[in-house]
Every structure is written in structure tokens, then in C-alpha cells.
């Protein structure tokens, strides 16, 4: 089974990959590139721990083939902060203690950024439905909602 050559942009860096035809983007990110911030919670698109964006669109990396990202722009949790400056969503997640174990957190942050780029002023209900694809088993979501609303407010004001 010969591998497929893929040229893609990951977090702004042009990247070349050789992927198996059945290799998911999640496997390519984690096992080939060691970008392990993107987590696997289920492998079936149910938990959202592997949320990344593909040309700005939110996807589960476990449901995308590595070969599909040829010529596309991938953004992962590792690309959210600007060098040593955290993104405001990351800061607000920390300030609101909106994580306990932290394993869903990368996916929540990536999904939130995608939401706020589409809708800078979401209602609590809109946030809850947008994040319904990102399971968190620790927090009961309360502090995550607070963090997202606070981040949205700060980003609107900025």
C-alpha cells in the first residue's frame, strides 16, 4: 500500500507528509508530526477532542483523511497562541478555571475560536449548542460557558 504525498499548511508552516491512504488527519498530526495537543477521545466524531480547523472550518480530525488536507490550511491547538502570548480564549479558560483534567480543553478552545470567528456575540444557548459536539466529563460545562462569554466580550471590545 503506497503512501500519498501531501503538501499542506499547518499552523502557518508549510508541511510535507507521506500518509497511508487510510490514515486519518488525526493520526498524521499525532503520529507523524507529533502534534499531540489534538486528542483522540473516540475516533468516531462523537467527542470533539480532536477538533481542528480546515481552511477555517471546524472538523473532527478523526473523520478527515490525511490525504484530504493536500493544499489546505490546518490549524490545531498548537497554533492558537501567538508565540508566548496566549489567545484571549486560552487566557479566559484559565482565569475561569474552565478545565479540570484538561484533555477536552484543546478541542474546546479550537471549537470556540471557530464559533467566535463566525459569531462574535453568541448567546449562552448558541454557545451550548455549538459546543454540544465537544464532550467534557469534568466540569458540567458551567465554567466553560463563562469563559467563552467572557472571551467573546473581550474580543468584541478589543
Amino acid at each position, binding site marked *: 500500500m503506497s503512501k500519498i504525498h501531501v503538501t499542506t499548511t499547518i499552523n502557518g508552516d508549510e508541511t510535507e507528509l507521506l500518509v497511508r491512504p487510510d490514515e486519518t488527519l488525526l493520526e498524521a498530526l499525532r503520529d507523524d508530526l507529533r502534534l499531540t495537543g489534538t486528542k483522540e477521545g473516540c475516533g468516531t466524531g462523537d467527542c470533539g477532542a480532536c477538533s481542528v480547523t480546515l481552511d477555517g472550518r471546524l472538523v473532527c480530525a478523526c473523520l478527515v483523511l490525511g490525504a484530504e488536507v493536500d493544499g489546505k490550511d490546518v490549524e490545531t491547538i498548537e497554533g492558537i497562541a501567538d508565540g508566548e502570548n496566549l489567545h484571549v480564549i486560552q487566557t479566559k479558560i484559565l482565569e475561569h478555571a474552565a478545565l479540570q483534567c484538561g484533555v*477536552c480543553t484543546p478541542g474546546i478552545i479550537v471549537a470556540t475560536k471557530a464559533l467566535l470567528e463566525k459569531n462574535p456575540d453568541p448567546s449562552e444557548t448558541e454557545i451550548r449548542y455549538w459546543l454540544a459536539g465537544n464532550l467534557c466529563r469534568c466540569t458540567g460545562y458551567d465554567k466553560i460557558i463563562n469563559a467563552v462569554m467572557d472571551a467573546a466580550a473581550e474580543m468584541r471590545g478589543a
Partner: protein
Amino acid sequence: MSLDNVPEHDEDAAAPAGEYRPRDFKVVGTRPLRPDGIDKVTGKAMYGADFYAPGMLVGKMLRSPHAHARIVRLDTSKATALPGVKAVMTAADFPAPRNIEAKDVGHHIMAHDQVLYDGHAVAAVAATSEAVAKQALKLIDVEYEVLPHVVDVDEAVKPGAVIVREGQRNKKVPDGYSDNCSGWYECGHGDVEAGFAKADLIVERSFKTASTHQGYIEPHACLASMGPDGRADLWCCTQGHYGVRRMCAGILGMEQSQLRVTASEIGGGFGGKTTVFIEPVALKLSEKAGRPVKIVMSREEVFRATGPTTSSSTDVKIGMTRDGKITAATAMCRYEGGAWDNWTVNMGVQSAFASYDLEAVKSQGVNVLTNRPKQAAYRAPGTPQATYAVESVMDELCQKLELDPIDTRLKNAAREGTKAAYGPTYAKIGLVELLEAAKAHPHYSAPLEPGVSRGVSNGFWFNFGGETCVSLALNFDGTITLIEGNPDIGGSRAAMTMMAAEELGVAYEKVRTLVADTASLGHNETTHGSRVTFAVGLATIKAARAAKAEMCRRAAKFWGIDPDAVEWVDGCARATGHNAGDFEPMPIEKIAKDSPSTGGPIVGHHEVTAEGAGVSFGVHLVDLKVDPETGFTEVVRYTVFQDAGKAIHPSYVEGQLQGGAAQGIGWALNEGYIYGADGCLQNPGFLDYRVPVASDLPRIDTVILEIPNPGHPYGVRGVGETGIVPPLAAITNAVSRNIGVRMNALPMSPPAIRAAIKSKG
């Protein structure tokens, strides 16, 4: 010792020695950013599956498609011959177990001659890639003779039931129960028959709960490397790497010193990561292959072959006077937790009536074996099930006698001096204060909109201490390195850092807390039983006190005065007594800098088997709507009241209460293992085993009370587990009042509620 193996509670456990001293806190009670936070919001934090090693192989396990079967033939020769396969193993590769734990845990991980549950592993391979490993599993030839199975608790307990494993009957089990009954426990006091005779109303009901799963988002993962000298390293996600070391060493016949276990960051556990499922297999494959082996479970494997909860069937009878005084109470708890014995039913039996001050009470329980995976702890193991039954009957009594649910609970509430049904006499506890806070809260007095109903429930958890070591090093620049041995599952590094900073009188930022591997610190009991903030906190405070005492000695030496004439105030040594004012206070930085010439490095440490974990109570209020057309329940308001003793970092205490409530809401309304007629699990994924998502839940408000635990220097009680106990009954009581039918089984999924409404006619 895992919590599974805690059979009895020390008579004195609820009445600990007086460690607590009131004080004004500077750091404790504030809300600093957690020290591991940046790694966790940037993707840098390393979880179980994030470790790679040179030459690493991929390990995979072959699992039974049957709930109960005899292995007629198991031939691995074709898999072994496949290019790229470097090792193949079966249970025959494990040596004879040294003890019961190694025997049962090892057997649960890999079947011998019989498979005992759907998903029971029969063999494992290590190969150069995942694709080769999967192909190798297909080449393993297994012939099964399918045997009759039993997965339901009520079926398994009956005489004539399919017997899961011969010879497991416990001698204490009375006649009338099947040979699957591996454990029996009872407790109580007083004359219950006389008590029931005094009652104006007696309600007796039976309840069932489905088995649920902890549902941590991170599947189990490990990387093992064993050399030809028998020395090994293991990296894994676990709630307790010392327990992993003990279990792996026991199963593999190793000396514990030869195995070093490093805990990764942990992506949730809730009790489910207190044992091992893949680690001994990875170690054995690594030994055979001579290369590192990584095993990562799929989500399906997590559901089928880890440690879900017990399912339960419980009878509760409570007698009450017209004015709401309980005259007698009994419970009979039947728990099944898979094909191996466990102690969870004991905790259910002990906790059933722990919230009440009763003259006559009897609580009994039986554990029964089934063809299911070996249950593991799940947040207050055993307690939600028993409490659900008791608190549901309490609500029915209140409804029938037209009594206020909180007033009635207050009338019967346990308090300091109450002899609990499970034996101990309580020290200072906070249940009365919690009930009063709930009664006074705007939630309880808010008018109910049409179609909305309200439910109330108490909850209790023992809390736990256990073996603990902490080492606190003063660096030469005056900063502090705190070494503990418990994985940080929800902010415990922050809590330890805060307690060290508080005790030493230094800034939070001056302390860095690290979690040591098993070779770098003495034994630490697993992160369970809500023990860490209590027990590791206690050891941290005492390690800091040891360091302070040494720093005072160094200052005394420098000043040439008696060490007793030096005290520690605000991060400085100060001369006291008749020397007061003679010397400038000596700050920690100077003592640190001078330490090489005043006696060497300064390290405070503390080792203890912590006792005095104060018991914990909670009260939950819930408002909800039920759609009579669909049976769908919408929770619209939720408030948690819990006694934290002292909330070290209030945000993370709130988070524990909210998370526990959310899991309890899931247990009440949606979650449950669904088995087919073949005894196989039909919903091993997050699509069909539906944990609450963000759009399912309302705001979960929290009210933290601080009734100091006498057994901790700052008054801390564990807070991790109690929050999952009340939701089952609180939601049941609200649904029952809403639809006018008393509900008696979980989960109350829309079809179950529809059926109940229809049954009303």
C-alpha cells in the same frame, strides 16, 4: 490498596484527632491560575497516549465476542509468523499470581480457559505498525464453546441462576441466594420491628439502577519498556502510579523496585483509572519483543473492557410518624459488579442511611457475580445507588404526609454525636447547616412555573486518607520545590502549591509542585476517595512545618540563640521571647542562600497514613420540566450545597460539585449499559452511551459551606465524590412529582417516562 479493598471503616474515622486550628488565610481561599494551566490550554501537556519511544511497537488485544464461553482452542502461530509481528502473548505468559489482587486483576485483563464477559481479552500482539497488529489479531484462531450467561443483577442473585464462576459463594450469604453471591455485608442498630410498629406510615419500594461508565474522555494508554535484565519503565495515565506498580509487579512476578511507573497527565478518571487493564500486557509484550510497546485503548474497548459501575437492585422500607420523624428504616442492596468479587456493595450498605440520626436501622447487601467486566470505582462508589433508593422513599413519605422535604430531612438529620448506621459516631459535620442553607436559598422559595417540578436529595460520602509522602525542598534562591506522588486530576497541584505557600508565608509563584514517579518518592495511595486535598494537603503542611523548624534552627544558629527562641512569621525567621527585637527578621531567601554553610540543604518531608478524613454531605435542589408527549426531561435549574470543610481553591471546589452533579444528571436521565439477549454490550460508544453535552445542561449553581474538619490543619474535607450522590434521587423526586407516578428505575430515559405516564392510564 484500592478502594475496592476497603472493607470496614475505622470506628474512629469519623471522629479524628484535633489537627484543626483556626487561622487567617492569605493564599488559601483565593483563586490563582493553576500551575499546569498553560500546558493544558496550549496542547503541550503530555497525556497517556502522547508518549513515543525509539523503536516503539504497537500493542493490540484480541477480545471475546461472547459474554461467557469456554476457550476450546487458541492458536497464535499464524499471527506469530506474520512479518512485522514481534511478540504475541496469552494469559499463559503471566506467572502464577502471588495474591488475590494479582489473581483477580490479571484474570480480568486476560482470560484463561473461559471468557467471562463480552470484550474479555484472550491474546495480545505487538507489531511494527497498527495495521500489522490489527492483521495479526485476525490471524489468531480462537474456537469458543458458548456458555449460558447472566448479566442482570436480579437474575444472577436467584437460586438456579447461571453460575458465572464456581466456588465463589461467600459463607455469610444466607439461604435463598444463588452461588453467584460472593459477598454479604450488614450493619445497623436498634429494634427495627418495634420502630415500624410506631410508624404512622410505612413506605416500602424497590429500585433498579443501570450500570454506568465513568466516561473519562481520555482512553487508557500506556508505553512500556522492559529490558533483558527485567528492569522496566512504564508511562501511563492513571489515578495512582504506585498502585499500577503494585498490580503490574504482582501480575508479572516482578519486584516492585524493578518497575518505575511515571504517571502522565490524566484525562479524567472518576475512579475508573484506579486499576490496570493494559499495562501488564504492554510490559509482557515489551519483555518478549525486547522493544518498547505502546497500547492505546479504543473507545469501544473502554466501554467493553474497563471497569464500569455496579448495577443495583435495592429494597428500602422507612416508617415515619405523621409529623415526619423516622421510626425505623431498612435497606436490602443487591449489587453486581461483573465476574469478580468487590466491596462496593459494602459502601452502599454503609452509606444508605448515613444522613440520618436513627434509633432503629438495618442495612444489608449482597454482591453477585455476573458476566460483565470487573467494576471499578466511580465517584463515591456504591453510594449513589443506595442513596437513590432511600431518598426516593423519603420523598414519597413527605409527599404522602404532606410534609416539607427539607424540614423532614432536618428533623432526622445526622449531626455531631449521631451514631451512624455504619458504626462511627460523627464528629462535627455540616448536614444541618447545608439543609438550612438550602431552605433559605432563593432557589427553594422560587415559585414554580406551570409544568415545572422540584426535587430534593441529601448525599453522603465517607472521604478517605491513606498512605502519603511529600517532600518539600528549599532551593538556594529561596524558592520551593514541592514533590508529591498523586496525579493531578483536577487542580491538585494548585491546591498543594497554595497550602505550601500559606504555611511558609511565601508567594504562590515561589512554589513549584511536581508529581514524582514511583522511584522518586515513597508510596502514595491512589488519587481516590476524595483523599488528595485532605491527605496530601496535610502532608504538605507538615512538610512545610518541618522545613520551617529547620529554617528556625539555622537562624538560631546564626544568631547564637536557642532554636526555641525563634518563630516563623510571614516567610521570615524572627527571634522571640526575651530575644525579640534583638535581630532583624531573617527572610527565607537568606536562610536558603546560607544553607550550604549552616548545615546543608534544607528539605522538609512528611510521611503518614492519613486518618481523620472528615465525612462529607451535600444537598441538591433541582427544577425540571417533563414533556408528556415525548417523555423528555429538561433540567431548568440546579443548585448544589456542599460542605468543603475549607475550600482551598474555591473555583476547583465549585468545579468538583458541578462535575459531580452533571454526571449524576446523566446517570439519572440517560446513561446506562444496554445488553442484548446474547449478553453483549450494545452501546459501546459516545453516540449511543450518551453523556450530557453542553446543550443538555442548565447552569449548576454552587453554595460551598465551610464546617472545618477537625482532622485537617486547615479544616479540609474532600469534595470530589459527594456531588454525584444526590442527583439520582433529586431528579427522580422531581420527575415523580411532575408526572404523578413514582419512578423506580434508572435511567429515566424518554421511553421509560412515556411508559410510566401511560401506566397511569
